């Protein structure tokens, strides 16, 4: 083998659960974790005579996704039946879209600048779950998931490495989360990924036989599985053999792929238009309204944040990961605070409070104006940064304005040298060993000593001044 180097050709098929809270063709809940077979009705059970009725809310979310991916929305799309027998498929067919999908011809641009074309976005219902591990010698079927609304996003094979596939998926996830289309919880299956992969000589435009890798349940699984599969195909070709079209299953525990079936014996799904559902016709006004409602998409917003607020790329990325967070940041900044300072506060203490469940972005105590007031107290020297974090938690908990909490708790910053020098002297006296090591060259112990002073002050000391005084004390007494 001394031909040109090989390159990977990768396409993704991503299933995204739409966050409507209800099923696509009946009103049952799609909440995760309900007891088996309780979120069901005649329609999703496929009982004789029951009929599907399309949820317009799901169509709206699917349209938002397609618009965000820059797709052409088709005025008329058609639901089709995909026929196959499986115990967790109650009707013996899945309602999907086939020849005439909701949208086609979109594109997403990766951070690397790679443009990945989106072949299509279509709507479909999920199947139930077959549980093979509940009973020793039988398969159990849970139909709660049956009829859950999904979109399938199919990319063209425009990705060239596992790393790129991962970034593409991350981008799609961010977009779906940002637009509140899906919570994209991969563990609960609300974002599922299959990947098609083949190898070809670099520069060739030929499409070689590809394999499909399924069961990619995390970002790292996508990257790892594709890496393993590319190696496997490389070995096959190196041995002079040809890759055959197969469906493979990623086994995360074994770190390997195994063959599920050969594509040649793939089933004939006998697709045909579902006669129970009239064609989905989308008036231009409806599409225009949804397009207008999309607003600024995360990528554009991130670029704007970098430019307008002069933020580092990392900050801009975090702040634009959700619309709520981005809006919050901008509202605080609009109260006149310096953007980078606001960014530090939002990404740090505020998100920590949200993550711990002490408050959320809409809590009255965390209102943008309140956070701006708090930052102003720090900027003005009234409050030390560590004390301010305590105040912020209090704001989230009680809803009180920062000034009131500062007063109540007596947290006004202490900046008088007399008082500060007392605490510094105490700290130096109490930690002679560390002082000696500091003087011996371990300057990083300064932080430890500052911490001791802050603790002694009840976090009220002005850390900048403490720093100065402590250095002075340590250097002066050195012989």
């Amino acid at each position, binding site marked *: 083998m001394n031909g040109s180097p090989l390159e990977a050709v990768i396409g993704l098929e991503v299933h995204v659960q739409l966050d409507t809270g209800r099923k696509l063709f009946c009103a049952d809940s799609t909440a995760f974790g309900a007891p088996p077979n309780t979120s069901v009705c*005649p329609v999703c*059970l*496929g*009982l*004789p*005579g*029951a*009929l*599907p*009725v*399309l949820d317009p809310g799901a169509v709206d979310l699917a349209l938002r996704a397609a618009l965000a991916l820059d797709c052409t929305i088709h005025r008329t799309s058609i639901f089709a*039946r995909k*026929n196959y*027998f499986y*115990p967790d498929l*109650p*009707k*013996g*067919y899945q309602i999907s879209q086939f020849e005439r999908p909701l949208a086609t011809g979109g594109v997403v641009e990766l951070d690397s600048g790679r443009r990945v074309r989106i072949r299509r976005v279509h709507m479909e219902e999920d199947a139930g779950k077959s549980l093979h591990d509940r009973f020793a010698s039988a*398969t159990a*079927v849970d139909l709660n998931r049956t009829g859950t609304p999904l979109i399938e996003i199919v990319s063209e094979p425009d990705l060239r490495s596992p790393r790129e596939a991962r970034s593409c998926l991350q981008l799609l996830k961010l977009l779906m989360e940002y637009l509140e289309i899906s919570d994209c919880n991969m563990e609960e299956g609300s974002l599922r990924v299959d990947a098609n992969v083949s190898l070809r000589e670099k520069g060739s435009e030929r499409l070689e036989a590809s394999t499909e890798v399924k069961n990619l349940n995390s970002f790292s699984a996508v990257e790892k599985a594709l890496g393993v599969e590319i190696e496997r195909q490389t070995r096959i070709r190196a041995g002079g053999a040809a890759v055959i079209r197969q469906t493979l299953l990623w086994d995360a525990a074994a770190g390997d792929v195994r063959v599920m079936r050969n594509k040649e014996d793939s089933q*004939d799904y*006998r*697709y*045909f238009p579902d*006669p*129970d*559902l*009239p064609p989905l016709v989308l008036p231009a006004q409806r599409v225009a309204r949804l397009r207008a409602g999309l607003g600024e998409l995360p990528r554009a917003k991130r670029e704007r944040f970098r430019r307008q607020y002069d933020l580092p790329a990392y900050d801009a990325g975090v702040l634009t990961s959700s619309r709520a967070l981005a809006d919050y940041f901008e509202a605080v900044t609009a109260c006149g605070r310096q953007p980078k300072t606001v960014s530090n506060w939002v990404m740090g203490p505020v998100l920590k409070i949200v993550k711990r469940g002490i408050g959320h972005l809409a809590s009255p105590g965390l209102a943008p104006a309140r956070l701006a007031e708090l930052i102003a107290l720090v900027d003005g020297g009234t409050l030390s940064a560590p004390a301010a974090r305590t105040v912020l938690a209090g704001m989230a908990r009680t809803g009180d304005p920062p000034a009131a909490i500062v007063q109540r708790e007596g947290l006004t910053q202490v900046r008088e040298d007399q008082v500060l020098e007392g605490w510094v002297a105490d700290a130096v006296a109490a930690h002679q060993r560390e002082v000696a090591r500091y003087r011996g060259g371990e300057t990083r112990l300064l932080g430890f000593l500052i911490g001791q002073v802050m603790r002694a002050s009840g976090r009220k000391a002005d850390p900048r001044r403490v720093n100065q005084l402590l250095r002075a004390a340590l250097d002066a007494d050195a012989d």
Partner: protein
Amino acid sequence: MRENSNGVAARAAEVRNGQLAPDSMVAEALEALGAWEFGASPLNAFIALDQRAGRERGPRDGALAGIPVAVKDNLATADFPTTCGSRILQGFRSPYEATAVRRLRRAGAVVLGKTNMDEFGMGSSTENSAFGPTRNPWHPERVPGGSSGGSAAAVAAGIVPVAVGSDTGGSVRQPASFCGVVGIKPTYGRVSRYGLVAFASSLDQVGALGRTVRDAAALLEVVSGRDPRDATSVNRPVPPLAAACDRGVRGLVVGVPREYFPPRLDPVVRRLAERALSALEAAGAEVRDVSLPHTRYAIPAYYIIAPAEASSNLARYDGVRFGRRCGEADSTERLYELSRSEGFGTEVKRRILLGTYALSAGYYDAYYGRAQEARAVIAHDFERVFRDGVDVLFTPTSPTPAFRLGERIHDPYQMYLSDIFTVPANLAGVPALSVPIGLAEGLPVGGQLMAAHWREDTLLTAAAAIEAELGTVGPPPVPAAGRAI
């Protein structure tokens, strides 16, 4: 009001104002049923029966107050099994009720029982039933037609004044014709299909059978109207159907499509059809020859589209969740295979195979695709004649009167041809009706009327005129050996 004192509207009114005991009509019905079903050659019109139907106390209200109704066994009912005449659903009880049945009950009707039918609606003689064939009340050796043969026979025998059927390719009209009663297949989308067990979803429509045009109209009016549970039901106001029966045909343009009067048409059927046309003319209608040139594609198109949809609709009967399950299976595939082999009858299997083939990769365009094109040109034929000023079309309902039990059961093609005149209305989605036009050697013959979409009122106007001119047929004599139940 014309000779209408025995009609369901008048009798329901008597129940509402207290002149008639709420359960008296149900009692009469059960008495008639005993006479017909427990004699020497029982009709076998019912699969399930409620002998205590309507006995609950209390006043009854609604347009069908106290009226006993028979319901085809492919409509979901909570208090009877729903079997579709199939072994695969033997004993199956639906946890919910069809919209049409709920509307009947809301209108005060009493569901007396579920009627026999060709399995899943596939047949034209009610011989393809796991519960044995139904007989024609006019002749014990003749079929009642199908697939709504049980409903037609129950009405013809005078057990119930009205019954609910379903019509996919003529399954209400052809048995109405064979049994000498009125049968209406409304416009596709007029009546909710929610709870109607699907055979061919794009063709299926719930229909009404009655002893008279007015009775059938009264039933249709109750079950019609948009249902949010059926995306194919349409929000169109239901015209006042009773009033339509009194309108008269003066000035009405009746088209006679020549494709429906082929040379081989049974001469007695032809003569009775011509007599009905003369009657319409005598009543003031204008009769005009017209052409529906693509009629010959109807049967081939139908026998692609209906089986294709059926092959998918019937996939759910797999033994996994409900209905018959073969207990011997050692794998999932074997479970499907055995449950379906044992559960379905010959004609159903034939159509599943036909439909599966027609939808298969490589054949789809040649069969299903072409059939849809044929369907479109057939629909266009109808649009054209109605646009050109024809109000209603008149044809025979079926080429012959009721044939003998067993005569066509082994010859599917001959069986399919008995629907040759009824299938086009289903393909086009237009409303159609069969009304008795006389007897041929003691067997009823029906005439078919077809109108533009949503013009059931025109059908009823023309049918009421034929009924007024020619009279109803029957009822057939009650067999002597019956006993009360």
